[in-house]
């Protein structure tokens, strides 16, 4: 029936929705997606933006990844931290990063943070919050440094310091007490570490190490595992067995080649004909 639609399809297949509704009524719950419980923060300082994040990914009550990366690359001087469903944040940021690269090539200008923010908010609004990605977007472009938060339903805020995720209250408490405008780089970095550490120690969904990313007009510096407050102590005893612990009785060496027959391939079997 009818010609093909000129519009691209939504990319989602809903043929299982009737079955899923039936299962839910019977009491079988949907499987839990890997989520990043998370503490993600961002703050403005004298020269630019510092973003910070913890590194724990959870799957229900289990820790799925002890050292995951939550600060995603968008462009050279724009980065995005992601909280919420891990697959959604990774895929959304990767997709926007590709589109920004194409956009920059098409316009011939350095990409702007507001462009990334607009693309993200329009995408998230379209999916009505089903794409579970809560993002902290920060970067420096030709108009200066900018810091935004984007919620899963598509609303955005532009602020000098932001926190998102389950540990956001702990981190925001640190920011509210110590943030000042025009801080120096070292002070700002210490503040961001303190905020993320507050999330790590006071929230179950956040943990492991602190990642930081410093973005200025001239360069972007990614400090992976900047602070490691949760390193495992070395075990006190050694549990390896020394050589010779198990006695062996007999040895049998079998050659895998049973019989070998070499046949020369080629007309003469001599040197290559290079005439």
């Amino acid at each position, binding site marked *: *029936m*009818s*010609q*093909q*639609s*000129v*519009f*691209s*399809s*939504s*990319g*989602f297949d*809903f043929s299982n*929705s*009737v079955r899923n509704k039936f299962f839910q009524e019977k009491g079988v719950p949907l499987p839990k997606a890997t989520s990043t419980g998370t503490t993600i923060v961002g703050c403005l300082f004298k020269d630019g933006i510092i973003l910070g994040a913890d590194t724990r990914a959870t799957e229900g009550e289990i820790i799925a990844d002890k050292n995951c990366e939550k600060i995603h690359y968008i462009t050279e001087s724009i980065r995005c931290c992601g909280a919420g469903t891990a697959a959604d944040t990774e*895929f959304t940021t990767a*997709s926007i990063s*590709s*589109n920004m690269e*194409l*956009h920059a090539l*098409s316009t011939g200008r350095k990409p702007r943070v507001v462009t990334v923010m607009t693309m993200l908010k329009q995408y998230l609004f*379209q*999916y*009505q919050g*089903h794409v579970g990605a809560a993002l902290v977007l920060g970067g420096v472009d030709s108009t200066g440094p900018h810091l935004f938060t984007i919620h899963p339903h598509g609303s955005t805020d532009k602020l000098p310091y932001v926190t998102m995720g389950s540990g956001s209250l702990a981190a925001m408490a640190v920011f509210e007490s110590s943030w000042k405008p025009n801080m120096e780089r070292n002070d700002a970095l210490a503040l961001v570490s303190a905020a993320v550490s507050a999330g790590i120690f006071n929230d179950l969904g956040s943990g492991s190490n602190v990642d930081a990313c410093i973005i200025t007009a001239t360069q972007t510096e990614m400090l992976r595992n900047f602070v490691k407050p949760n390193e495992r102590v070395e075990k006190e005893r050694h549990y390896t067995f020394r050589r010779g612990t198990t006695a062996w009785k007999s040895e049998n060496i079998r050659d895998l080649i049973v019989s070998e027959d070499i046949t020369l391939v080629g007309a003469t079997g001599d040197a290559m004909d290079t005439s």
Partner: protein
Amino acid sequence: MEPSYRVIPSSQIKTASINDTAGSLGLHDTLRYGIRSIATETRGGEFENRIAKWEETQDNARLHMLANLYGPSAPMRLLMERQIVSASPHMPGMSQSNIHLDILMGRDETLDSTDFFLGMESGPPLSIHNDMEKKLRL
């Protein structure tokens, strides 16, 4: 679609249709799709309808605004160009890419999830005859 300024698809009245499962006689094809049931015909909830109609609704709003600015011929011309370009000579089974249509629709410089995810599940068509029939019946 009727002219309107809506940018978000309206929540439509639920309709049951056999467009997806109709055979050559226009009835539900039981042999291929199983027993007909109302549950599977009233497809999807509000959310499915929203994202399925998203692009169409926004495009309709844009065309309506064009009609108010430049007159009814402006959207008519664009729609005519799209229709000309959509008449592709390709067989409906194999993978199709219509770059001219992509340019006209403004998606030549963006990447969407459908560009790399869709099409992986559908392999070579089981019956080219049926697909051609569907296409040419228009």
